[in-house]
């Protein structure tokens, strides 16, 4: 089962990386960008019979390692049947 995790800084926590990227876009003429925040995409292939079981497993991974609950929120999408993009 393939599972996709999105990890992002909690709302209200200053994202200096996002602000720098936004400034770069401004320099490229994208003055219409109101806000830009950078997060992380983690794809996990986990042995599981059902999507719910895979989700529960990955949720545990997020709580133990993949996200830092002080700084970050995460969302989990089970993407059954979809293949990771080739290298």
């Amino acid at each position: 089962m393939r599972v996709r995790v999105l990890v992002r800084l909690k709302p209200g926590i200053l994202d200096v990386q996002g602000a720098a990227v936004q400034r770069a876009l401004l320099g490229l003429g994208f003055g219409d960008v109101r806000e830009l925040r950078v997060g992380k995409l983690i794809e996990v292939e986990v042995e599981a019979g059902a999507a719910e079981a895979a989700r529960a497993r990955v949720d545990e991974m997020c709580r133990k390692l993949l996200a830092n609950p002080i700084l970050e929120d995460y969302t989990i999408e089970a993407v059954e049947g979809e293949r990771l993009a080739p290298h």
Partner: protein
Amino acid sequence: MRFGVVVFPGTWSDCDFHYAISEVVRQPVRYVWHRDRDLADLDCVVLPGGFSYGDYLRAGAVAGKSPVVEALGDFVARGGFVLGSCNGFQILCEGGLLPGALMRNECLQYRCQSTSLLVENVDTPFTRGMPPGQVLTMPISHGEGKYYADPETLRTLKARRQVVFRYATTDGQVVRAANPNGSVENIAGVVNEGGNVLGLMPHPERAAETAMGGTDGLLLFQSLLGTLVEDGTFLRR
């Protein structure tokens, strides 16, 4: 006093700490590999700076879940001392041994420079014997040293006097201009509630001899030695 200096893949300040402890402070010290769990012979475990496991995922995240850091839970519970500097501070936060987290510097630059630190609490085992208002000079060298804690945690930290060091001017003024990385309220180092785990971004091991440009880092070791003499640990060994 027996020190252990933990070595992760990617640690870079291990030899500096080993040198400062063995050659300057003149105390017994051994290296501790990150897979080791046996810390029974040690009084103080040092987590040095560097880039443990390449700092993949987040700085200190993977190291924070390593066997040696898991073993630190029991070590700390039985009163052992832990000193984490730079990456070591990040690891202690990621491992749940200290509150808060460390983020990318607000300036987005890697900062390698001398800093002045106001010692806010001179009653911890690591700072005892220093006069109130003591200012220490120690270098920093990091890209992710911006300390963050939510407002409630911050209130608790202050109420329990767990904030030990703040970035300041040379005369001890805690002002924004003296903050090299955007840390909340200029915080450079904190202790746990029990007072036996200290994390700080600056490098005491790089301020341990006159030839290095200063010796203020030694004061932390001297405080710790004094603590152990006073509580009788030396007599039991």
